[in-house]
Protein backbone atom coordinates (compact mmCIF):
# COMPACT_ATOMS: atom_id res chain seq x y z
CA UNK A 1 0.00 0.00 0.00
CA UNK A 2 1.55 3.25 -1.16
CA UNK A 3 -0.40 5.87 0.77
CA UNK A 4 1.33 8.86 -0.79
CA UNK A 5 0.64 7.53 -4.27
CA UNK A 6 -3.05 7.01 -3.56
CA UNK A 7 -3.24 10.53 -2.21
CA UNK A 8 -1.33 11.94 -5.20
CA UNK A 9 -3.57 10.22 -7.75
CA UNK A 10 -6.75 11.10 -5.87
CA UNK A 11 -5.87 14.77 -5.45
CA UNK A 12 -4.64 15.04 -9.03
CA UNK A 13 -7.90 13.64 -10.33
CA UNK A 14 -9.96 15.84 -8.04
CA UNK A 15 -8.03 18.91 -9.14
CA UNK A 16 -8.92 18.02 -12.73
CA UNK A 17 -12.55 18.03 -11.63
CA UNK A 18 -12.25 21.43 -10.03
CA UNK A 19 -10.49 22.81 -13.08
CA UNK A 20 -13.45 21.82 -15.21
CA UNK A 21 -16.03 22.33 -12.50
CA UNK A 22 -18.52 23.99 -14.82
CA UNK A 23 -18.68 21.04 -17.22
CA UNK A 24 -18.47 18.58 -14.36
CA UNK A 25 -21.46 19.88 -12.46
CA UNK A 26 -23.52 22.22 -14.57
CA UNK A 27 -24.16 19.85 -17.47
CA UNK A 28 -25.73 17.02 -15.43
CA UNK A 29 -27.70 19.49 -13.31
CA UNK A 30 -29.14 21.24 -16.36
CA UNK A 31 -30.06 18.02 -18.11
CA UNK A 32 -31.77 16.79 -14.95
CA UNK A 33 -33.80 19.98 -14.72
CA UNK A 34 -34.79 19.47 -18.37
CA UNK A 35 -35.96 15.93 -17.64
CA UNK A 36 -38.02 17.34 -14.81
CA UNK A 37 -39.61 19.99 -16.93
CA UNK A 38 -40.49 17.50 -19.66
CA UNK A 39 -41.30 14.31 -17.76
CA UNK A 40 -42.16 15.57 -14.33
CA UNK A 41 -44.16 18.65 -15.13
CA UNK A 42 -45.37 18.51 -18.72
CA UNK A 43 -46.08 14.80 -19.03
CA UNK A 44 -46.28 14.01 -15.33
CA UNK A 45 -49.27 16.23 -14.74
CA UNK A 46 -51.26 13.95 -17.07
CA UNK A 47 -50.15 10.80 -15.24
CA UNK A 48 -51.85 9.62 -12.09
CA UNK A 49 -49.99 8.91 -8.86
CA UNK A 50 -47.99 5.69 -8.59
CA UNK A 51 -48.52 3.91 -5.23
CA UNK A 52 -49.65 7.22 -3.85
CA UNK A 53 -46.58 9.13 -5.03
CA UNK A 54 -46.85 11.88 -7.62
CA UNK A 55 -45.09 11.11 -10.90
CA UNK A 56 -42.68 14.04 -10.52
CA UNK A 57 -41.37 12.58 -7.27
CA UNK A 58 -41.52 9.00 -8.54
CA UNK A 59 -38.96 9.61 -11.28
CA UNK A 60 -36.36 11.24 -8.98
CA UNK A 61 -34.44 8.04 -8.07
CA UNK A 62 -34.36 6.98 -11.71
CA UNK A 63 -33.07 10.38 -12.80
CA UNK A 64 -30.35 10.35 -10.18
CA UNK A 65 -29.35 6.83 -11.26
CA UNK A 66 -29.29 7.83 -14.92
CA UNK A 67 -26.85 10.67 -14.28
CA UNK A 68 -24.78 8.80 -11.74
CA UNK A 69 -24.26 5.77 -13.99
CA UNK A 70 -23.24 7.91 -16.93
CA UNK A 71 -20.99 10.14 -14.83
CA UNK A 72 -19.29 7.23 -13.08
CA UNK A 73 -18.55 5.46 -16.32
CA UNK A 74 -17.38 8.45 -18.33
CA UNK A 75 -15.30 9.96 -15.52
CA UNK A 76 -13.46 6.78 -14.65
CA UNK A 77 -13.05 5.77 -18.28
CA UNK A 78 -11.63 9.16 -19.19
CA UNK A 79 -9.38 9.28 -16.11
CA UNK A 80 -7.39 6.27 -17.30
CA UNK A 81 -7.91 6.66 -21.05
CA UNK A 82 -6.41 10.14 -21.06
CA UNK A 83 -3.01 9.08 -19.63
CA UNK A 84 -2.99 6.26 -22.17
CA UNK A 85 -3.72 8.74 -24.92
CA UNK A 86 -1.17 11.36 -23.79
CA UNK A 87 1.42 8.72 -22.89
CA UNK A 88 1.66 9.55 -19.20
CA UNK A 89 0.48 6.02 -18.37
CA UNK A 90 4.16 5.03 -18.53
CA UNK A 91 4.81 7.08 -15.43
CA UNK A 92 2.11 5.14 -13.64
CA UNK A 93 3.53 1.84 -14.89
CA UNK A 94 7.03 2.74 -13.75
CA UNK A 95 5.85 3.91 -10.32
CA UNK A 96 5.98 1.70 -7.23
CA UNK A 97 2.21 1.29 -6.96
CA UNK A 98 -0.03 -1.77 -6.62
CA UNK A 99 -3.21 -2.26 -8.57
CA UNK A 100 -5.11 -1.57 -5.37
CA UNK A 101 -3.38 1.82 -5.05
CA UNK A 102 -4.38 2.65 -8.60
CA UNK A 103 -7.96 1.58 -7.96
CA UNK A 104 -8.23 3.55 -4.74
CA UNK A 105 -6.77 6.65 -6.37
CA UNK A 106 -8.54 6.71 -9.71
CA UNK A 107 -11.78 4.94 -8.91
CA UNK A 108 -11.95 6.64 -5.53
CA UNK A 109 -11.81 10.02 -7.25
CA UNK A 110 -14.37 9.03 -9.90
CA UNK A 111 -16.67 7.71 -7.18
CA UNK A 112 -16.34 10.91 -5.17
CA UNK A 113 -17.14 12.96 -8.24
CA UNK A 114 -20.21 11.05 -9.38
CA UNK A 115 -21.49 10.72 -5.82
CA UNK A 116 -21.27 14.50 -5.43
CA UNK A 117 -23.12 14.95 -8.69
CA UNK A 118 -25.82 12.53 -7.51
CA UNK A 119 -26.24 14.50 -4.29
CA UNK A 120 -26.38 17.81 -6.15
CA UNK A 121 -29.04 16.44 -8.51
CA UNK A 122 -31.03 15.24 -5.49
CA UNK A 123 -30.86 18.68 -3.94
CA UNK A 124 -31.88 20.28 -7.25
CA UNK A 125 -34.80 17.88 -7.51
CA UNK A 126 -35.79 18.54 -3.94
CA UNK A 127 -36.04 22.24 -4.69
CA UNK A 128 -38.46 21.51 -7.54
CA UNK A 129 -40.47 18.72 -5.91
CA UNK A 130 -40.06 18.21 -2.15
CA UNK A 131 -38.94 14.64 -1.52
CA UNK A 132 -39.15 12.59 1.64
CA UNK A 133 -36.50 9.86 1.77
CA UNK A 134 -37.67 6.91 3.88
CA UNK A 135 -34.30 5.14 4.30
CA UNK A 136 -31.63 7.89 4.02
CA UNK A 137 -28.73 5.74 5.29
CA UNK A 138 -29.49 2.95 2.83
CA UNK A 139 -29.94 5.56 0.13
CA UNK A 140 -26.44 6.98 0.68
CA UNK A 141 -24.90 3.53 0.98
CA UNK A 142 -26.58 2.30 -2.17
CA UNK A 143 -25.65 5.42 -4.10
CA UNK A 144 -22.00 5.10 -3.03
CA UNK A 145 -21.91 1.44 -4.00
CA UNK A 146 -23.42 2.22 -7.37
CA UNK A 147 -20.89 5.01 -7.99
CA UNK A 148 -18.03 2.72 -7.04
CA UNK A 149 -19.27 -0.24 -9.11
CA UNK A 150 -19.87 1.79 -12.23
CA UNK A 151 -16.67 3.80 -11.84
CA UNK A 152 -14.89 0.44 -11.78
CA UNK A 153 -16.79 -0.56 -14.89
CA UNK A 154 -15.86 2.72 -16.57
CA UNK A 155 -12.22 2.17 -15.61
CA UNK A 156 -12.28 -1.14 -17.49
CA UNK A 157 -13.71 0.61 -20.54
CA UNK A 158 -10.98 3.25 -20.33
CA UNK A 159 -8.30 0.55 -20.14
CA UNK A 160 -9.87 -1.35 -23.00
CA UNK A 161 -10.68 1.52 -25.38
CA UNK A 162 -8.27 2.08 -28.24
CA UNK A 163 -9.79 5.37 -29.38
CA UNK A 164 -12.31 8.02 -28.40
CA UNK A 165 -15.10 6.31 -30.36
CA UNK A 166 -14.75 3.13 -28.33
CA UNK A 167 -14.64 5.23 -25.19
CA UNK A 168 -18.12 6.59 -25.92
CA UNK A 169 -19.49 3.42 -27.48
CA UNK A 170 -20.44 1.45 -24.37
CA UNK A 171 -22.08 4.31 -22.45
CA UNK A 172 -24.05 5.37 -25.54
CA UNK A 173 -24.91 2.03 -26.99
CA UNK A 174 -25.51 -0.08 -23.92
CA UNK A 175 -25.94 1.97 -20.79
CA UNK A 176 -28.37 4.60 -22.10
CA UNK A 177 -30.91 2.05 -23.45
CA UNK A 178 -30.54 -0.15 -20.39
CA UNK A 179 -31.25 2.78 -18.11
CA UNK A 180 -34.19 4.04 -20.14
CA UNK A 181 -35.66 0.54 -20.30
CA UNK A 182 -34.71 -0.07 -16.69
CA UNK A 183 -37.71 1.67 -15.18
CA UNK A 184 -36.29 5.15 -14.63
CA UNK A 185 -39.59 6.67 -15.72
CA UNK A 186 -42.01 3.89 -14.85
CA UNK A 187 -42.51 0.95 -12.58
CA UNK A 188 -41.84 -2.48 -14.12
CA UNK A 189 -45.22 -3.60 -12.83
CA UNK A 190 -46.83 -1.13 -15.25
CA UNK A 191 -45.55 -3.18 -18.21
CA UNK A 192 -47.40 -6.04 -19.93
CA UNK A 193 -46.40 -9.46 -18.52
CA UNK A 194 -44.18 -10.32 -21.49
CA UNK A 195 -42.11 -7.15 -21.18
CA UNK A 196 -41.89 -7.61 -17.44
CA UNK A 197 -40.17 -10.96 -18.10
CA UNK A 198 -37.76 -9.38 -20.59
CA UNK A 199 -36.96 -6.61 -18.13
CA UNK A 200 -35.80 -9.18 -15.59
CA UNK A 201 -32.68 -9.60 -17.74
CA UNK A 202 -31.84 -5.92 -17.57
CA UNK A 203 -29.45 -5.49 -14.63
CA UNK A 204 -30.25 -1.79 -14.33
CA UNK A 205 -33.83 -2.70 -13.33
CA UNK A 206 -32.54 -4.05 -10.02
CA UNK A 207 -30.49 -0.92 -9.45
CA UNK A 208 -33.33 1.47 -9.96
CA UNK A 209 -35.74 -0.73 -8.06
CA UNK A 210 -33.38 -0.89 -5.09
CA UNK A 211 -32.66 2.81 -5.15
CA UNK A 212 -36.35 3.59 -5.37
CA UNK A 213 -36.98 1.42 -2.32
CA UNK A 214 -34.62 3.58 -0.24
CA UNK A 215 -36.80 6.58 -1.15
CA UNK A 216 -40.35 5.26 -0.99
CA UNK A 217 -40.16 1.91 0.78
CA UNK A 218 -41.71 0.06 -2.15
CA UNK A 219 -40.08 -1.60 -5.13
CA UNK A 220 -40.42 -4.20 -7.86
CA UNK A 221 -37.86 -6.50 -6.23
CA UNK A 222 -36.61 -7.02 -2.72
CA UNK A 223 -33.87 -4.56 -1.69
CA UNK A 224 -31.52 -7.38 -0.75
CA UNK A 225 -31.56 -8.64 -4.34
CA UNK A 226 -30.56 -5.17 -5.54
CA UNK A 227 -27.85 -4.92 -2.90
CA UNK A 228 -26.52 -8.33 -3.83
CA UNK A 229 -26.52 -7.43 -7.53
CA UNK A 230 -24.59 -4.19 -7.14
CA UNK A 231 -22.01 -5.69 -4.77
CA UNK A 232 -21.44 -8.64 -7.11
CA UNK A 233 -21.03 -6.29 -10.04
CA UNK A 234 -18.49 -4.17 -8.14
CA UNK A 235 -16.50 -7.25 -7.15
CA UNK A 236 -16.58 -8.65 -10.68
CA UNK A 237 -15.34 -5.38 -12.19
CA UNK A 238 -12.50 -5.15 -9.70
CA UNK A 239 -11.43 -8.72 -10.35
CA UNK A 240 -11.26 -7.88 -14.03
CA UNK A 241 -9.17 -4.76 -13.33
CA UNK A 242 -6.71 -6.77 -11.24
CA UNK A 243 -6.43 -9.34 -14.02
CA UNK A 244 -5.88 -6.64 -16.63
CA UNK A 245 -3.02 -5.09 -14.69
CA UNK A 246 -1.52 -8.46 -13.86
CA UNK A 247 -1.42 -9.64 -17.45
CA UNK A 248 -0.62 -6.16 -18.74
CA UNK A 249 -3.59 -6.41 -21.09
CA UNK A 250 -3.49 -3.52 -23.58
CA UNK A 251 -1.46 -1.53 -21.06
CA UNK A 252 1.99 -3.04 -21.01
CA UNK A 253 3.67 -4.36 -24.13
Amino acid at each position, binding site marked *: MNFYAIKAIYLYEM*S*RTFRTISQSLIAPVISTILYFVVFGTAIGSKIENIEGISYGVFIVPGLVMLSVLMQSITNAAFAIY*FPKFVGTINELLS*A*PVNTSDIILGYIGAATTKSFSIGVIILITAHIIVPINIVHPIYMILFLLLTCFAFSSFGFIIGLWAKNFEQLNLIPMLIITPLVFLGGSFYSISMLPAFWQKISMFNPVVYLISGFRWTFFNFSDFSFSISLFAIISFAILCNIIIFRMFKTGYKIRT
Partner: protein
Amino acid sequence: MKPIISINSLYKTYKSGFKALENISLDINKGEIFALLGPNGAGKTTLISIITGITIPTSGLVKVNNFDVIKNPINTKSVIGLVPQEVAIEPFETVLSSVKFSRGLFGKPQNSDYLKKILKQLSLWDKRNTKIIELSGGMKRRVLIAKALSHEPLVLFLDEPTAGVDVELRKDMWGIIRSLKENGVTIILTTHYIEEAEDLADRVGFINNGKISLIENKKQLIEKMGKKTLSIHINNSIKNIPNNLKKYKLEISNNGATLIYNYNINHDKTGITRLLNDLSNENIILKDIKTNQSSLEDIFVDIVGK
Protein backbone atom coordinates in the same frame (compact mmCIF):
# COMPACT_ATOMS: atom_id res chain seq x y z
CA MET B 1 31.74 -3.84 -6.23
CA LYS B 2 28.22 -5.21 -6.47
CA PRO B 3 26.32 -4.04 -9.52
CA ILE B 4 23.18 -2.00 -8.86
CA ILE B 5 21.59 -3.36 -12.02
CA SER B 6 22.27 -6.81 -13.32
CA ILE B 7 20.76 -8.20 -16.49
CA ASN B 8 21.09 -11.82 -17.44
CA SER B 9 20.21 -13.42 -20.80
CA LEU B 10 17.40 -10.98 -21.45
CA TYR B 11 15.16 -11.53 -24.46
CA LYS B 12 12.26 -9.42 -25.66
CA THR B 13 10.00 -10.43 -28.51
CA TYR B 14 7.09 -8.05 -29.12
CA LYS B 15 3.62 -9.42 -29.83
CA SER B 16 4.18 -8.59 -33.49
CA GLY B 17 6.90 -11.27 -33.41
CA PHE B 18 9.65 -8.67 -33.64
CA LYS B 19 12.78 -9.62 -31.69
CA ALA B 20 13.74 -6.33 -30.05
CA LEU B 21 16.33 -7.72 -27.62
CA GLU B 22 18.38 -10.89 -27.88
CA ASN B 23 20.48 -12.38 -25.13
CA ILE B 24 21.39 -9.16 -23.36
CA SER B 25 23.65 -9.53 -20.33
CA LEU B 26 24.89 -6.39 -18.68
CA ASP B 27 25.91 -5.14 -15.25
CA ILE B 28 25.70 -1.50 -14.24
CA ASN B 29 27.90 -0.52 -11.33
CA LYS B 30 26.75 1.60 -8.48
CA GLY B 31 27.55 5.27 -8.99
CA GLU B 32 28.73 5.08 -12.57
CA ILE B 33 27.52 6.89 -15.64
CA PHE B 34 26.76 4.38 -18.33
CA ALA B 35 26.06 5.50 -21.87
CA LEU B 36 24.06 3.27 -24.16
CA LEU B 37 24.71 4.03 -27.80
CA GLY B 38 23.04 2.62 -30.85
CA PRO B 39 21.18 3.58 -34.00
CA ASN B 40 17.41 4.16 -34.22
CA GLY B 41 15.49 1.01 -33.47
CA ALA B 42 18.44 -0.72 -31.81
CA GLY B 43 16.47 -1.57 -28.67
CA LYS B 44 17.66 1.10 -26.22
CA THR B 45 14.21 2.24 -25.15
CA THR B 46 12.98 -1.35 -24.99
CA LEU B 47 15.82 -2.24 -22.62
CA ILE B 48 15.11 0.77 -20.40
CA SER B 49 11.37 0.02 -20.41
CA ILE B 50 12.00 -3.50 -19.17
CA ILE B 51 14.27 -2.35 -16.35
CA THR B 52 11.78 0.34 -15.31
CA GLY B 53 8.85 -2.09 -15.34
CA ILE B 54 6.93 -0.59 -18.26
CA THR B 55 7.52 -3.49 -20.62
CA ILE B 56 7.35 -7.18 -19.77
CA PRO B 57 10.45 -9.21 -20.72
CA THR B 58 9.98 -12.41 -22.72
CA SER B 59 12.69 -14.23 -20.76
CA GLY B 60 15.76 -13.52 -18.70
CA LEU B 61 16.50 -12.02 -15.33
CA VAL B 62 16.73 -8.34 -14.44
CA LYS B 63 17.69 -7.23 -10.95
CA VAL B 64 17.79 -3.71 -9.57
CA ASN B 65 19.29 -3.13 -6.15
CA ASN B 66 19.21 -6.94 -5.69
CA PHE B 67 15.46 -7.19 -6.34
CA ASP B 68 13.88 -8.93 -9.30
CA VAL B 69 11.92 -6.49 -11.47
CA ILE B 70 9.19 -9.09 -12.05
CA LYS B 71 8.92 -10.56 -8.55
CA ASN B 72 9.48 -7.39 -6.50
CA PRO B 73 8.52 -4.52 -8.77
CA ILE B 74 7.64 -2.20 -5.88
CA ASN B 75 11.18 -2.48 -4.51
CA THR B 76 12.86 -1.91 -7.85
CA LYS B 77 10.59 0.84 -9.08
CA SER B 78 10.88 2.93 -5.94
CA VAL B 79 14.61 3.54 -6.51
CA ILE B 80 14.39 4.34 -10.22
CA GLY B 81 13.80 7.67 -11.88
CA LEU B 82 13.03 7.76 -15.59
CA VAL B 83 13.27 10.59 -18.07
CA PRO B 84 11.43 9.11 -21.04
CA GLN B 85 12.31 9.70 -24.65
CA GLU B 86 8.80 10.79 -25.56
CA VAL B 87 7.73 14.08 -24.05
CA ALA B 88 4.46 13.09 -22.40
CA ILE B 89 3.10 15.26 -19.61
CA GLU B 90 -0.49 16.13 -18.85
CA PRO B 91 -0.93 19.35 -20.81
CA PHE B 92 -3.33 21.23 -18.54
CA GLU B 93 -1.46 20.77 -15.29
CA THR B 94 1.01 23.29 -13.94
CA VAL B 95 4.71 22.53 -13.66
CA LEU B 96 4.66 22.40 -9.88
CA SER B 97 1.60 20.17 -9.55
CA SER B 98 3.03 17.83 -12.17
CA VAL B 99 6.26 17.49 -10.22
CA LYS B 100 4.42 17.10 -6.91
CA PHE B 101 2.32 14.35 -8.45
CA SER B 102 5.43 12.40 -9.42
CA ARG B 103 6.91 12.68 -5.96
CA GLY B 104 3.70 11.41 -4.39
CA LEU B 105 3.31 8.64 -6.93
CA PHE B 106 6.73 7.32 -5.98
CA GLY B 107 5.74 7.16 -2.34
CA LYS B 108 7.52 10.20 -0.95
CA PRO B 109 5.94 12.76 1.39
CA GLN B 110 5.91 16.26 -0.09
CA ASN B 111 9.02 18.37 0.44
CA SER B 112 8.64 21.87 -0.97
CA ASP B 113 12.23 22.89 -0.27
CA TYR B 114 13.61 19.99 -2.24
CA LEU B 115 11.26 20.54 -5.18
CA LYS B 116 12.12 24.23 -5.17
CA LYS B 117 15.81 23.34 -5.34
CA ILE B 118 15.30 21.07 -8.35
CA LEU B 119 13.09 23.52 -10.19
CA LYS B 120 15.62 26.29 -9.61
CA GLN B 121 18.43 24.07 -10.84
CA LEU B 122 16.49 23.43 -14.03
CA SER B 123 15.51 27.12 -14.40
CA LEU B 124 11.85 26.18 -14.02
CA TRP B 125 11.09 27.93 -10.76
CA ASP B 126 9.72 31.04 -12.49
CA LYS B 127 7.48 28.80 -14.57
CA ARG B 128 6.17 26.74 -11.67
CA ASN B 129 2.61 27.98 -12.03
CA THR B 130 2.60 27.81 -15.83
CA LYS B 131 0.57 25.13 -17.57
CA ILE B 132 2.61 22.49 -19.39
CA ILE B 133 0.86 23.27 -22.67
CA GLU B 134 2.25 26.80 -22.52
CA LEU B 135 5.88 25.65 -22.30
CA SER B 136 8.38 25.26 -25.11
CA GLY B 137 9.65 21.81 -26.09
CA GLY B 138 12.94 22.23 -24.24
CA MET B 139 11.14 23.41 -21.11
CA LYS B 140 8.87 20.37 -21.22
CA ARG B 141 11.94 18.19 -21.32
CA ARG B 142 13.21 19.97 -18.22
CA VAL B 143 9.91 19.25 -16.51
CA LEU B 144 10.39 15.56 -17.33
CA ILE B 145 13.79 15.70 -15.67
CA ALA B 146 12.32 17.50 -12.66
CA LYS B 147 9.64 14.82 -12.40
CA ALA B 148 12.25 12.05 -12.49
CA LEU B 149 14.39 13.76 -9.85
CA SER B 150 11.43 14.72 -7.67
CA HIS B 151 11.48 11.41 -5.81
CA GLU B 152 15.23 11.29 -5.19
CA PRO B 153 16.05 8.14 -7.19
CA LEU B 154 19.19 6.03 -6.68
CA VAL B 155 19.22 5.11 -10.35
CA LEU B 156 18.36 7.57 -13.07
CA PHE B 157 17.55 6.63 -16.65
CA LEU B 158 17.82 9.37 -19.24
CA ASP B 159 16.46 8.27 -22.60
CA GLU B 160 17.91 10.83 -25.00
CA PRO B 161 17.69 13.66 -22.51
CA THR B 162 19.23 16.25 -24.77
CA ALA B 163 17.32 15.64 -27.97
CA GLY B 164 15.87 18.97 -29.11
CA VAL B 165 17.56 20.91 -26.36
CA ASP B 166 19.64 24.04 -26.89
CA VAL B 167 23.34 24.25 -26.15
CA GLU B 168 22.91 26.11 -22.90
CA LEU B 169 20.42 23.66 -21.44
CA ARG B 170 22.57 20.79 -22.61
CA LYS B 171 25.46 22.22 -20.60
CA ASP B 172 23.17 22.76 -17.61
CA MET B 173 22.05 19.19 -17.92
CA TRP B 174 25.54 17.82 -18.04
CA GLY B 175 26.25 19.82 -14.90
CA ILE B 176 23.25 18.31 -13.19
CA ILE B 177 24.23 14.81 -14.27
CA ARG B 178 27.72 15.29 -12.88
CA SER B 179 26.44 16.61 -9.57
CA LEU B 180 24.03 13.69 -9.30
CA LYS B 181 26.93 11.33 -9.83
CA GLU B 182 28.82 13.07 -7.05
CA ASN B 183 25.86 12.36 -4.80
CA GLY B 184 26.14 8.67 -5.62
CA VAL B 185 23.32 8.40 -8.16
CA THR B 186 23.84 5.80 -10.87
CA ILE B 187 23.04 7.18 -14.31
CA ILE B 188 22.22 5.35 -17.51
CA LEU B 189 21.76 7.52 -20.55
CA THR B 190 21.09 6.90 -24.19
CA THR B 191 22.10 9.44 -26.72
CA HIS B 192 22.86 10.01 -30.33
CA TYR B 193 25.33 12.75 -29.45
CA ILE B 194 28.61 10.98 -29.21
CA GLU B 195 30.24 13.96 -27.49
CA GLU B 196 27.80 13.51 -24.70
CA ALA B 197 28.87 9.94 -24.03
CA GLU B 198 32.49 10.87 -24.54
CA ASP B 199 32.25 13.73 -22.08
CA LEU B 200 30.13 12.18 -19.38
CA ALA B 201 30.28 8.42 -19.38
CA ASP B 202 32.51 6.11 -17.39
CA ARG B 203 31.54 3.19 -19.57
CA VAL B 204 29.90 2.85 -22.93
CA GLY B 205 27.73 0.07 -24.31
CA PHE B 206 26.90 -0.33 -27.97
CA ILE B 207 23.65 -1.91 -28.95
CA ASN B 208 22.57 -2.79 -32.44
CA ASN B 209 19.70 -4.95 -33.69
CA GLY B 210 18.84 -5.89 -30.13
CA LYS B 211 22.29 -7.20 -29.29
CA ILE B 212 24.94 -5.62 -27.12
CA SER B 213 28.03 -5.57 -29.27
CA LEU B 214 30.51 -4.03 -26.89
CA ILE B 215 30.76 -2.82 -23.35
CA GLU B 216 33.89 -0.99 -22.44
CA ASN B 217 35.45 1.39 -20.10
CA LYS B 218 35.46 4.51 -22.19
CA LYS B 219 39.17 5.26 -21.93
CA GLN B 220 40.18 1.69 -22.69
CA LEU B 221 37.76 1.61 -25.53
CA ILE B 222 39.18 4.66 -27.15
CA GLU B 223 42.69 3.35 -26.75
CA LYS B 224 41.94 -0.17 -27.81
CA MET B 225 39.93 0.73 -30.79
CA GLY B 226 41.90 3.92 -31.11
CA LYS B 227 43.42 4.20 -34.49
CA LYS B 228 45.48 7.32 -34.79
CA THR B 229 46.27 9.33 -37.80
CA LEU B 230 49.37 11.35 -38.44
CA SER B 231 48.89 14.29 -40.77
CA ILE B 232 52.10 15.46 -42.33
CA HIS B 233 52.07 18.87 -43.94
CA ILE B 234 54.85 19.28 -46.45
CA ASN B 235 56.45 22.24 -48.13
CA ASN B 236 56.40 21.13 -51.74
CA SER B 237 53.25 19.34 -52.67
CA ILE B 238 53.61 15.99 -54.42
CA LYS B 239 51.40 14.20 -56.94
CA ASN B 240 52.51 10.61 -56.47
CA ILE B 241 53.84 8.66 -53.57
CA PRO B 242 57.52 7.80 -54.17
CA ASN B 243 58.08 4.04 -54.55
CA ASN B 244 60.16 3.86 -51.38
CA LEU B 245 57.21 5.14 -49.37
CA LYS B 246 54.51 2.87 -50.88
CA LYS B 247 54.68 0.42 -47.96
CA TYR B 248 53.32 3.06 -45.58
CA LYS B 249 50.00 3.23 -47.47
CA LEU B 250 49.95 7.00 -47.25
CA GLU B 251 46.96 8.97 -48.40
CA ILE B 252 47.44 12.18 -50.25
CA SER B 253 45.14 15.03 -49.42
CA ASN B 254 44.95 18.77 -49.61
CA ASN B 255 46.18 18.68 -53.26
CA GLY B 256 49.34 16.88 -52.28
CA ALA B 257 50.23 19.28 -49.47
CA THR B 258 49.32 16.77 -46.77
CA LEU B 259 50.18 13.12 -46.32
CA ILE B 260 48.11 11.03 -43.99
CA TYR B 261 49.49 8.01 -42.17
CA ASN B 262 47.25 5.59 -40.24
CA TYR B 263 48.71 3.65 -37.34
CA ASN B 264 47.65 2.07 -34.11
CA ILE B 265 48.98 3.30 -30.82
CA ASN B 266 48.70 -0.16 -29.31
CA HIS B 267 51.05 -1.83 -31.74
CA ASP B 268 54.65 -2.34 -30.63
CA LYS B 269 55.95 -0.49 -33.63
CA THR B 270 53.98 2.38 -34.95
CA GLY B 271 56.39 2.93 -37.81
CA ILE B 272 56.56 6.64 -37.26
CA THR B 273 60.30 6.88 -36.85
CA ARG B 274 60.99 4.88 -40.01
CA LEU B 275 58.44 6.89 -41.95
CA LEU B 276 59.98 10.19 -40.92
CA ASN B 277 63.43 8.88 -41.80
CA ASP B 278 62.29 7.71 -45.20
CA LEU B 279 60.57 11.01 -45.84
CA SER B 280 63.78 12.88 -45.19
CA ASN B 281 65.65 10.40 -47.46
CA GLU B 282 63.23 11.33 -50.21
CA ASN B 283 64.04 15.00 -49.55
CA ILE B 284 60.54 15.81 -48.53
CA ILE B 285 60.59 18.83 -46.23
CA LEU B 286 58.13 18.79 -43.35
CA LYS B 287 56.23 21.91 -42.39
CA ASP B 288 54.08 20.59 -39.57
CA ILE B 289 52.80 17.33 -38.17
CA LYS B 290 49.58 16.61 -36.31
CA THR B 291 48.09 13.48 -34.74
CA ASN B 292 44.43 12.65 -34.33
CA GLN B 293 42.81 10.04 -32.14
CA SER B 294 39.55 8.50 -33.30
CA SER B 295 36.55 9.66 -31.35
CA LEU B 296 33.76 7.47 -30.02
CA GLU B 297 31.82 8.51 -33.05
CA ASP B 298 34.37 6.93 -35.38
CA ILE B 299 34.34 3.80 -33.27
CA PHE B 300 30.58 3.80 -33.23
CA VAL B 301 30.35 4.10 -37.00
CA ASP B 302 32.93 1.35 -37.24
CA ILE B 303 31.00 -1.05 -35.02
CA VAL B 304 27.58 -0.28 -36.40
CA GLY B 305 28.92 -0.55 -39.91
CA LYS B 306 29.97 -4.16 -39.36
